[in-house]
């Protein structure tokens, strides 16, 4: 079996032990069965059990293992080891802009607070019918590209507007979710949802920098969804 050695530079900080954060140089040997960055991280942890990171499904659907990888946000489990050039260390940092709990683990409270702020649930005050609420395939298609979000936070933590105002700007993930409900023919709260976003910060801090689109590991387009909400705001105003 062919093996190769990967060099890493990893952001380390354990508030229980360390005065301040530092970058650790560490190497690990991987073989041909190790395809993804997460495989290498699991091997690293077998060498040094103190490296802390989140992971679960290892197939890109749970959203646990979002990291800043060589300066770009992505999921460790979907990042090919083959994509790294030989001879250069792989630099791993926690997602930018959020408080750090330990090593590669960030505190996501602010991120989820914004997600919760858009009322991420279907609002329909009619008494539920006995069977399913009907929805045409075309209307259902409107939700494609919206409902698949895994809440990994790659997008929001790559967004300069979110870095500056994480308490006031909903951020791309939250806004994508907001539009997911606005676009759902079964939801009756469009006006209330637009009211909730009508302020100088919550929606309008998006300056279409499009970092979110660039990094989304699921290939989703929050900027497009934000544009649609903005259009609806304008249409509503005139």
């Amino acid at each position, binding site marked *: 079996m062919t093996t190769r050695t990967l060099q890493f530079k990893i952001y380390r900080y354990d508030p229980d032990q360390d005065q301040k954060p530092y970058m650790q140089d560490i190497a690990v040997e991987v073989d041909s069965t190790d395809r993804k960055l997460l495989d290498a991280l699991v091997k690293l942890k*077998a060498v040094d059990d103190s490296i*802390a990171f989140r992971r679960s499904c290892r197939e890109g659907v749970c959203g646990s293992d979002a990291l800043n990888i060589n300066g770009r946000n992505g999921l460790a489990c979907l990042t090919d080891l083959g994509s790294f050039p030989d001879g250069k260390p792989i630099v791993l940092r926690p997602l930018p802009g959020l408080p750090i709990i330990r090593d590669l*683990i960030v505190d996501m409270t602010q991120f989820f607070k914004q997600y919760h702020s858009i009322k991420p649930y279907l609002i329909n005050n009619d008494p539920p019918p006995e069977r399913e609420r009907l929805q045409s395939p075309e209307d*259902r298609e409107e939700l494609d590209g919206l409902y698949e979000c895994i809440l990994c936070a790659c997008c929001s933590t790559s967004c300069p507007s979110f870095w500056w105002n994480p308490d006031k700007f909903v951020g791309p993930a939250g806004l994508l979710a907001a539009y997911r409900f606005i676009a759902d023919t079964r939801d009756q709260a469009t006006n209330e949802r637009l009211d909730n976003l009508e302020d100088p910060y919550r929606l309008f801090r998006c300056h279409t920098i499009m970092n979110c689109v660039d990094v989304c590991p699921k290939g989703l387009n929050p900027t497009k969804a934000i544009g649609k909400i903005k259009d609806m705001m304008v249409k509503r105003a005139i």
Partner: protein
Amino acid sequence: MSQKVTVRKFDAVIVGAGGAGLRAAIQLSEAGLKTAVLTKVFPTRSHTVAAQGGVAASLGNSEEDHWHWHMYDTVKGSDWLGDQDAIEFMCRKANECVIELEHYGMPFDRLDNGRIYQRPFGGHMSNFGEKPVRRSCAAADRTGHAMLHAMYQRNVRASTQFFVEWMALDLIRDAEGEVLGVTAMEMETGEIYAFHARATIFATGGAGRIYYSSTNAFINTGDGVGMAARAGIPLEDMEFWQFHPTGVAGAGVLITEGVRGEGGILRNSNGERFMERYAPNAKDLASRDVVSRAMVTEINEGRGCGPNKDFVLLDITHLPPETIMKRLPGIHEIAVQFAGVDALKEPIPVVPTCHYQMGGIPTNYHGQVVVPGKRSQNEIVPGFYAAGECACASVHGANRLGTNSLLDLLVFGKSAGETAVEELKKSPKAHKELPADAFERSLARLDRLNTQKDGANVHETQLAMRRTMQKHAGVFRFNDLLKEGVQKILEVQQDVQRTEIKDKSQVFNTARIEALELDNLIEVAVATMVSAEARKESRGAHVRDDAPDTPEHPNGRDDANWLKHTLWYKEGNRLDYKSVNLRPLTVETIALKKRAY
């Protein structure tokens, strides 16, 4: 080390926030009860998120269907080991539970008439086994994701109180055997708490990580099952593990049976559609245990593919690209990511991969945990409930049908929640006092781990466990390998009792968490191996060389001696058995017969 334990009181504590836990939480929160939901990961990261193909319900949106047919298929799928009261209950409740999800906002795919889209799935047939029926309600191939998010969202609406990144450690039981809550660790601070509750619901999922090759997430470490075993609760039917026919070769990542539901075909190295030989009627849509064994037989007889002839091919290249991109977009993505193939143009290399734990904590169909006692073989453990993969109701028996797991967690998550609400309203408001030794087991485990010197490496020990399970209790089982497997897994257990971690930090110590998870995994592994060695017949997913297909024992099944549930007790590594409930709630018994597809 004597660690401080802070006690918090709730009406109910739910451990786990996957499908079953979230469904139970909706019931309790909407009833206005003070409920804590503990979860190792943010709820939408639970492994329900990875379910793909759909959830079974006889809605009949595309063709005639009936819950009774669904029940028949489930009993037959279980190889008659499932309890027929629980199976009738689940199949009858299916429509209601799926419709509720739709009302919560779940984005199901739709038919032209606006109703929920349904696709065929393995083992689901019309008219008592005649021909495949479209019963699986799907949101593309991301049904679990859509479902988990919809249920989390409903809980946000209900203001459910979540304790995210908290790991439950042990069950608290008093001298009468009543369950009074759990001990738990807040992962961020390493602090220990006790959740003192009048109802405790386990919804902790499966333990597929006991095997080397598994579709399961890292977090699927059987925590609830391990906690129950340590607290003296027997584990039911742990010898039955489902190997999903289509895990990506090498990576283990799941490829949904929905691929075959949409028309995908399994082929061997000759390009032959070999399932026609093993299941002339259902072919590629036979039950999972049947398909997995056929695949391993093909590989063992030299008709595997690739340089080592160690996988078969799942072919969808004949399907219209629009169908693939519309109905199976996630699979297309997974094939590119983990198999390096474009499934529109090339077949996907697949092998049977450990997927689902049919056994678990014994419950009745109300979600109440039951154990043998003086009065009956199913005495209720007061205050204790379980639902989903960690529980054994038993609806899956010796083999689960695809799409019945998402149904199981909906129906029994709801049922456990409903029963808990009723019991809480009946019982006195005051909490029963905690016993003096309530935290002892947890504190002893933590203390041992913090002070262990010259111990066993956690990573190597879990690898030894997974390799042992893979080799000794796989798709096909052999008498000598099982016997040897029992010895080996007990040796691994010795190492688990002396694991050592280097990291002693209190802050988000993932090394400590992995060591504590291994304590749970090993209970599951030992229970599996011991139960499997003892069951001297072939049934469902448990097929052994010394119980072959004979006229006297078709498929190797021995109903005279083995139509019974296994119960494994941690104490003394002891086995007991209880009878299968063959009496449904309202319809006639589905009579025993030979299983063929």
